[in-house]
């Protein structure tokens, strides 16, 4: 059992007949992911890599038990696809798509909360429980076959970066989740930490944040209020960003001193988190902790 997903999770892909949907459905099938159905309006009755395609989530749900939906439709259609999944009470809805209008995400998040549905993303690479299953676009061979460290990151490529380096050094990862780089996201650092607190497979958590917003600060506040009981590391991208500059993500705006890397790192350090100045520093600190806890176990991959 991992958090959110595991080897038994039955997944549908909304937008499976698109180019990305078809490609990543194949990659997921190769990884052994249980994809039970795909959804594309107007393509009901067809198949993608042997996966049955339905016109609606409701129709798919009448033929299959569904735990999880991956939304890979173009941005203008994400609102409709997500609301459909939520109205059909799919327990977890992960939105991979980037450039989703933020007002749409706002609506989705509020509707999901009202319906008791977990949303992850949008603008995320997905979630992986290495060796078990994945729901996302990550190259699985960078993520190894398991470990004791979980990674939660706003950036997908920084997931790849840190997970691959932890894997190469033989440490591995228990699960990696991109929470998404948008201003509004369904699942936050705090939500992830709450789940990881009780995850028996995770002994340490790496938080990878960015400048802008206040989600890292909220994570620090959460860690100060609970006895988290696990080691937490953090890295914040954008320490050297010129103030006021928009750095790619809409969420990564430094606005009048709020959300700077310095402020985030200070709060996290105060909450007992081990903060890192660079990726190398982060990986090294995790390795040091690991070696101290499990001396002599590490066999480097490369």
């Amino acid at each position: 059992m991992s958090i959110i997903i595991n080897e038994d999770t039955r997944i549908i892909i909304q937008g499976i007949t698109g180019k990305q949907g078809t490609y990543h459905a194949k990659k997921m099938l190769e990884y052994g992911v249980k994809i039970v159905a795909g959804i594309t309006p107007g393509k009901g009755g067809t198949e993608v890599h042997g996966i049955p395609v339905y016109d609606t989530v409701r129709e798919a749900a009448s033929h299959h038990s569904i735990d999880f939906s991956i939304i890979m439709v173009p941005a203008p259609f994400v609102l409709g696809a997500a609301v459909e999944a939520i109205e059909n009470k799919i327990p977890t809805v992960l939105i991979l798509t980037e450039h989703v209008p933020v007002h749409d995400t706002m609506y989705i998040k509020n509707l999901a909360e009202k319906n008791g549905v977990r949303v992850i993303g949008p603008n995320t690479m997905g979630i992986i429980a290495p060796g078990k299953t994945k729901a996302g676009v990550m190259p699985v061979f960078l993520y190894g076959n398991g470990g004791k460290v979980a990674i939660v990151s706003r950036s997908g490529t920084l997931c790849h970066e840190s997970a691959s380096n932890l894997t190469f050094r033989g440490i591995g990862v228990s699960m990696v989740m991109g929470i998404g780089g948008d201003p509004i996201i369904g699942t936050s650092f705090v939500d992830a930490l709450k789940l990881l607190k009780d995850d028996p497979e995770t002994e340490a958590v790496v938080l990878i944040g960015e400048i802008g917003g206040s989600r890292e600060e909220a994570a620090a506040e959460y860690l100060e209020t609970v006895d988290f009981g696990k080691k937490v590391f953090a890295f914040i991208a954008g320490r050297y960003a010129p103030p006021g500059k928009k750095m790619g993500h809409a969420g990564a705006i430094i606005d009048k001193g709020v959300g700077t890397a310095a402020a985030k790192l200070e709060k996290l350090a105060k909450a007992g988190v081990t903060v890192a100045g660079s990726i190398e520093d982060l990986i090294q600190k995790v390795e040091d902790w690991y070696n101290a806890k499990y001396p002599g176990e590490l066999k480097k991959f490369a």
Partner: protein
Amino acid sequence: MYLYEYQAKKVVGEAGIPIPINRLALNPEEAKKAVEEINKPSAVKAQVRAGGRGKAGLIKLVETPQEAYSSAQEIFGKVHHGETVEKVLVEEKLDVAKELYVSVILDTYQAKPLVLISAEGGVDIEEVAAKNPEAIIKVPIDPLEKLVLEHRWLEAWGKAGLEGKVLTQAANITGKLLDLFYKIDAFTVEINPLVITKDGKVIAADSKVIVDDSSLYRHPELHDFKDLSTNPFEARAREIGVSYVPISDEGYIGIIAGGAGLSMATMDAVFEYGGVPAAFIDLGGGITEEGMAESLKLMLKTEGMKGIIINVFGGINNCEIMARGVERVYREGKPQIPIVVKMRGHSQDEGWAILQKLDIPIIKYGTTDEAIKLLLSKVENGKEGLQ
């Protein structure tokens, strides 16, 4: 998208909110005509995005059309925080009795619109928030609620001390501002100050509007306002479908990376190890061979460039395709500055093979830090040869 003052005023005015009489002028002659039409003492205001216009002499109060002409003549062509004044807004001067504040902002943490109301307008609202927080009334809105009606704003403005016709006008404006917020997919719609004039009218004297870029596909009415950056590199990147972010005018390292997080982490590493990045290009998802090639060419053209780091993953993108993009540039001529690639993920073997043929150093298993250290050492070593 951050709208210019004259654009924000247009949007706010079209939402049915009273704004000062104004005219956009593209030269001193038009500014003169504008005051003739307005036929009142007016302000001539440079249209630039950065704040501090008053101190910089970019806002002039004028009494006559002739004064408008000469003031405009002074303002046009001035450079303010890198932006040249090409437009001025000529606007009637209001007889101000009192200044209020109202805005709707996106509370990204609560995922709700938040309406902020204050009887203390005309100053920086963050200052008010710091000094006298109870002077700001916060009304969170449930985005699932279909109708949010005027009594909410009567209640809030009543609490702020307004009464009579001023109360009903302010409430009406607030309702329209929330409608506008939703209608244009805004991050922020702010009116500061919301002026009560001496004859009891409530007018949006200044407004600030920020719109979500991701929503622009459904806002043809805003296309004219699109931020056509004067930076040709940013403009070209937009055509390619990537984003080009200038970092430092003194920079000499170019970063091409996938994703904003990794782009920023790479930028941090360059600074961390003593280099100065000039700019980064965030490739985003779904990059094509051509997009990769054009991105690299764009970075190579950036002034003062001495070395480029390509830091990418085959996740939503594909290593082979990105490597082919690099190859395409090399076929047109080998770049004269060092390039280091850190690349792994989907189709990494195919990608590595292509890059190896081009003699490009590849960091296959290390961290971003390793790649940057390698690049910086190459730039350092190659200095004499290249200059």
